């Protein structure tokens, strides 16, 4: 029972982080109708930005998150403005293909710049944990979970209540009408993509404190983010929290009862199943 409790806790802590990873993908998908296959590569880049800030500038990975997010926002803004805006109206397949190409380029450049070695961001408190009755809460994971949930909820409030958030949602609903009300779409698309990438980068920074990173982690994380967006649905940013927790717990349980190599099989299996049974997401509105 203690083991099961611990595994559930681990799953929940991991799930919070997964939710934040998926949030950026869901935002870009929902608003720009681009499924960004390079999303995981941006998570990976964010992890390296945090790692370098920590290693060379000695900035704590949690305190450095705003810097990581800012750097990634700038990259995201540039990519959307310079490349993706050029093909926004092309068929869906072209946007998939171009982001696939971006992921190949980013992964390659990362391998060139950072080498293929596994790295971790190791602050002094990395090994600390809080013992809570029968279960142990690793401090870094707990903090990553807290920050991830706070940012996800904050993002939701931002979209609901700020002027920029409303403009983003209006664009998602009806581009032409939003334009008539004074939204400048090229800028707004770039800002939205930038926010999505900033979230991905910050999630990467957190991921680097709880797990090993290397240039190749991107593809798997993209697929997980996609699975979470599908499970949670794109209509409500809080859906990703449900999706993330679900996936985190599922992976932990599969690793315990069936075997660690099957954790990914379980999550992608669920993805395919959900797609077939209910393509708008378990929590999404019916099509």
């Amino acid at each position, binding site marked *: 029972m203690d083991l099961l409790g611990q595994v559930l806790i681990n799953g929940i802590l991991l799930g919070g982080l997964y939710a934040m990873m998926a949030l950026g993908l869901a935002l870009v*998908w929902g608003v720009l109708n681009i*499924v960004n296959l390079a999303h995981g590569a941006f998570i990976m880049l964010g992890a390296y930005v945090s790692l370098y800030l920590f290693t060379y500038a000695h900035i704590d990975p949690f305190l450095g998150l705003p810097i990581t997010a800012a750097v990634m926002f700038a990259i995201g803004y540039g990519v959307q403005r310079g*490349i993706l*805006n*050029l*093909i*926004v*109206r*092309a*068929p*869906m*397949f*072209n946007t*998939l*293909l*171009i982001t*696939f*190409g*971006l*992921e*190949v*380029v980013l*992964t*390659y*450049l990362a391998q060139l710049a950072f080498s293929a070695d596994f790295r971790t961001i190791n602050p002094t408190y990395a090994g600390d944990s809080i013992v809570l009755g029968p279960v142990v809460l690793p401090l870094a994971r707990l903090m990553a979970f807290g920050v991830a949930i706070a940012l996800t909820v904050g993002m939701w409030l931002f979209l609901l209540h700020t002027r920029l958030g409303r403009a983003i949602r209006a664009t998602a609903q009806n581009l032409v009408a939003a334009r008539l009300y004074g939204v400048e*779409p*090229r800028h707004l*698309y770039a800002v939205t993509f930038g926010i999505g990438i900033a979230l991905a980068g910050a999630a990467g920074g957190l991921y680097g404190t709880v797990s090993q990173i290397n240039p190749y982690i991107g*593809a*798997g994380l993209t*697929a997980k983010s*996609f*699975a979470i967006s599908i499970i949670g649905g794109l209509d409500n940013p809080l859906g990703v929290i449900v999706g993330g927790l679900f996936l985190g717990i599922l992976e932990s349980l599969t690793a315990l009862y069936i*075997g660690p*190599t*099957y954790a*990914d*099989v379980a999550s*992608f*299996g669920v*993805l*395919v199943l959900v*797609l*077939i049974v209910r*393509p708008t997401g378990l929590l999404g509105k019916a099509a």
Partner: protein
Amino acid sequence: MKALRIMLVLAAFAVLAAVPWFGSDVLIQFGINALLLAVLAQGWNIIGGYTGYASFGNSVFYGLGSYGVGIAMAQWHLPFAVGLVFGVVLAVTFAVLLGIPVLRLRGHYFAIATLALAQVMTAIVSNVELAGQNIGLVLPPLNNDRLFYELSLGLLVLATLTVFWLTRSRFGFGLIAIRENEEGAEVMGVNTTLYKTMAFALSGVFSALAGGIHAYWVTFIDPESAFDISLNVKMIIMAVFGGPGTVLGPVVGALSLSAISEFLSSEITSLASLFFGIVVVVAVVIMPRGLADMLRRFRKTGWRYFAENIRTHRL
């Protein structure tokens, strides 16, 4: 004009067929790889180019074909041909069992579902005892690169003739109708589920045969290399670069991109993958309908062709 084109294709084929008799070993080995990639691109063309279902999981068929040959030859000591058939049976079974549910999805959803399938295959096969788990299988060696070259070329010709048949058969018209308007096709009496599944299976058959030939040629397979996801990137890029939904586009795309990437990787190792990434990004922006369309229109519009592509698709 038409006769000229046929003559050109035949001449190109004759040159390709003669390569093993005048080329160096390195050239033959490069040729086998390039031809097998062209088969994959042509196989993808059937489901992605003609039917309009962008599969990101055709590497699964390739892997199943590799393992069909691998299991038959290394575990059961059966001849190569039986292995190829076994691989094809595996691929068709997969295409039917998973194709029927997955082909109900459209657009992004189909693409990602197939990508997810491609991602789980490595983990699944790593746990199958018959497939040698994650250690892999060693096949009996056959040191005859000429034979493998001609086999690969033969397979490419077969795949290309099949695609040519699509352009003038009822079945092919059905697939194109599905691509252009699936509801419309259904209303006109096309059994869309059957047609899509058959296209997926046909695409799988060629990919599996390519995988089988490759497995016997390199005499060693393991889950990582047989179900390599980056193969999807390559075959899709080659087909799209050459011109999806055309008979020769994917072949031209595959052979030309293979040649450039081989040249680059002999200059600087592993620059090839960066090159593929950049080609996709640039090609999608300035020539989204591939070489075939570009060559056709470039004569009329000249350099404006690229600018017009950007103008129609930008925000």
